[in-house]
């Protein structure tokens, strides 16, 4: 009923640049009433930028947004909302201490008195429409995440919405919550509303979408029209979408083959005849707001092996790294290093046993930008001899040590006393790697080790990891999805494809 009618809203050739990135590059999309338009893409594909512009958070550099057949400019989220574009962001924006109805009345002009009666009437009307039963006088903070999201949807529709944008709406929901969301979306569709569902999960895209658009690196790669969606079955649709999301290389496996060659040339492989160096059994962590906890994570790691952990950001990778490093408490499960159980040991104890964690947050977790290079090189050895004797620092020795490390690791810095924050990202990474990788490293946990580095520094970082006999690429790749290890893939032909499939939560055939 939809595709022939004129669109409710559209973006036309929209382009947005941020320093150093072309976040959206000439994207054109149409949103029709009574249709769920799914926007698929990996992290950094440009989805959030696009929503941000539709929600009035920032303005496009080029191109136009059309609402109801007219081009519009949104200077603020308020203007966007006034024209009927409601957005539900991934992380809730309710004031937890206020009641549901109070939250919904926020955002009115400050001089207007609050109209409880009208607000309650509107609340009942919308609740009926969406089939919700939430107490309007309950404190927002006491509702489940699913209910909070329903309130956000209510708020987005408060002033007669035309287009409802849902940003990764199932990220925080239980399966039941996601099901309920599905029925809410169906009702909205029946009301003739246009919905934009942003996600990286293939199954829900196929389940709910009437039209699927795929973004990659800021560009619209392809679209699956409602007609095509009706004609093809789910498995075919998934294949097509996967191909668009991860590109040709993943589909054909060309790059993979050459990489495999390189690796076999080095002749390194995990030695499985020995017992595993690191064993993890049934790890679980506590849920914290906005973070994905682990559930039942188990794996083994053999000496000389690299286990890659793949997954879309926010599926528990950070918790896994922190639990292994001893920075985060495990609710359940066991971690064994060379036969020793280390679950109860703290971060310092595990470091002494040779577990090294190289975090991806180089500036805010790994180092202190205001401290000198020399101190940052010893940040995890403060108080230890020979650099500290009886708790008193031998700065002569500390600086000499730093000069040696700077020379042997080719760290570009004016001096060892320069504040680390003045160095380039690549040199900061060299400092961190020099600190973490040495003869005593038994297990290194690397979180996105080449993230944010240019190609040159990327290669240097890789070489540094290699020098320590750790391997250039993974032997096996474990994929995390919503806090679980959904599968382990032996690196080989078709691995990239399998990983891509697992990353999007697609465990079916």
């Amino acid at each position: 009923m939809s595709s022939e009618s004129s669109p409710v809203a559209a973006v036309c050739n929209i382009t947005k640049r941020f320093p150093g990135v072309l976040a959206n590059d000439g994207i054109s999309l149409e949103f029709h009433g009574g249709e769920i338009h799914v926007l698929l893409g990996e992290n950094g594909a440009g989805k959030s930028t696009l929503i941000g512009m539709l929600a009035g958070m920032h303005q496009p550099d080029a191109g136009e947004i059309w609402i109801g057949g007219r081009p519009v400019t949104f200077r603020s989220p308020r203007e966007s909302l006034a024209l009927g574009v409601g957005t539900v962001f991934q992380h809730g924006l309710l004031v937890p201490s206020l009641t549901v109805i109070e939250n919904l009345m926020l955002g009115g002009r400050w001089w207007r008195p609050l109209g409880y009666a009208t607000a309650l009437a509107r609340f009942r009307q919308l609740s009926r429409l969406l089939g919700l039963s939430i107490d309007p006088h309950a404190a927002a903070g006491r509702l489940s995440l699913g209910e909070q999201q329903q309130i956000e949807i209510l708020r987005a529709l408060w002033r007669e919405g035309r287009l409802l944008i849902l940003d990764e709406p199932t990220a925080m929901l239980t399966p039941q919550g996601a099901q309920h969301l599905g029925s809410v979306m169906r009702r909205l569709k029946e009301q003739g509303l246009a919905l934009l569902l942003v996600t990286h999960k293939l199954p829900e895209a196929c389940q709910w979408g009437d039209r699927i658009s795929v973004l990659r690196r800021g560009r619209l790669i392809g679209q699956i029209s409602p007609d095509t969606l009706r004609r093809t079955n789910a498995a075919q649709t998934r294949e097509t979408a996967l191909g668009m999301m991860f590109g040709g290389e993943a589909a054909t496996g060309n790059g993979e083959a050459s990489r495999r060659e390189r690796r076999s040339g080095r002749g390194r492989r995990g030695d499985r005849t020995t017992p595993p160096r690191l064993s993890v059994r049934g790890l679980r962590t506590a849920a914290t707001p906005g973070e994905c906890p682990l559930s039942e994570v188990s794996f083994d790691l053999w000496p000389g092996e690299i286990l890659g952990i793949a997954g879309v950001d926010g599926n528990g990778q950070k918790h896994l790294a922190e639990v292994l490093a001893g920075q985060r408490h495990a609710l359940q499960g066991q971690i064994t290093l060379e036969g020793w159980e280390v679950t109860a040991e703290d971060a310092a104890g595990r470091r002494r046993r040779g577990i090294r964690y190289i975090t991806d947050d180089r500036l805010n977790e790994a180092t202190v930008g205001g401290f000198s290079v020399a101190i940052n090189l010893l940040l995890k050895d403060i108080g230890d001899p020979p650099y500290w004797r009886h708790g008193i620092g031998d700065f002569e020795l500390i600086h000499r040590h730093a000069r040696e490390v700077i020379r042997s690791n080719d760290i570009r810095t004016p001096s060892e006393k320069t504040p680390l924050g003045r160095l380039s990202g690549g040199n900061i990474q060299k400092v961190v790697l020099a600190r973490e990788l040495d003869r005593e490293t038994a297990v290194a946990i690397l979180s996105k080790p080449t993230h944010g580095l240019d190609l040159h520094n990327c290669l240097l970082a890789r070489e540094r990891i290699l020098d320590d006999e750790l391997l250039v690429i993974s032997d096996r790749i474990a994929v995390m999805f919503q806090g679980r290890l959904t599968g382990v893939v032996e690196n080989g032909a078709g691995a990239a494809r399998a990983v891509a499939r697992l990353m999007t939560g697609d465990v079916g055939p």
Partner: protein
Amino acid sequence: MRGETQERLAIVLRVMVPAALALGAGAIILLMLGRDPLAYYGYVLKRGLLTWGGLQETLTRTAPLLLIAAGLIVAFRAGIWNLGGDGQFLLGAVATAGLGPLLIDVLPRGATLIACMAAAALTAALWSLIPAVLKARYGVNEVVSSLMMSFLGASFANLLVKTVLRDRTTAVPKTPDLPVADRLPPVLGNVHLGVLIALAAVVLVHLAITRTAFGLKLQVLGANPAVARHAGLNVTWITIASFTLSAALIGLGGSIEILGVWGTVRADWNPAFGLLVVPIVFLARLNGYAVIVFTLCVAVLMIGGESAARRLGVQQHFVWVLLALLLIFLALLEHFDQVRRARRAI
């Protein structure tokens, strides 16, 4: 080398320019009040620094201020905002005033003084244990909790003065006097030994923070708690240790003010040095040596200002106005400096 000299000059300018601006703005306010600013500043300088009696008073005043500053440096360097200084100071003072007259009858003078100082430090440290543990274990914001504990501490100290520690021989609610001969001995004119103790404390704190492993751990925590956790530091322990150490130093300040100057605590006595020292410490950017210089300047202002209040009729609180102006200009300059640097970076 040239760069280093320039950098040093910039640091000095960054303090001197706001100081000049504050004095200028203060002069305008004085003019509006119908007073002669030059006469006021001249009198403050003369009474606070340039007369022998005034100088002695000024030096004596630095003792409690320096010890509070030492305590605040320890906490602030660890990123712990201990604003409970007044309560900790008064509890230290009352513990000293209560214990001193009792002990002096059984112990020699030196032992009494040391015992009083230790008791004061311990009392204040124990009092700070509540906000410290709340912060370390449950992440409770110490700005609120330590400030609340400060009010409670001041009231509690007052209660002790009016009840169990009260001097029954007079009608004035105060603790029994510690005889002048049993107080901290003078080292220079009327300047008592406590001033040297306070100076030593600031220098020791500065060295401990810049040279020792504990000091560096403290600084890591203060710079970024996430880094501290990542580096495997025992954040809970460091938080509690620096919080209580901070309170102990401030309590020692209260003790020395009693042992050196007053010999007794009167009911409702509260010099409120705790919050006064906070801006001094920031002004000095948590550097111990700079703190000594700034404390001396503030002490001159305080002593001179007190005299000027009596002589020229300018309220004593005008000193605080000057200090507030100084901080405002300092913050403004800092802001503009950052804006300029950000522009240059682009």
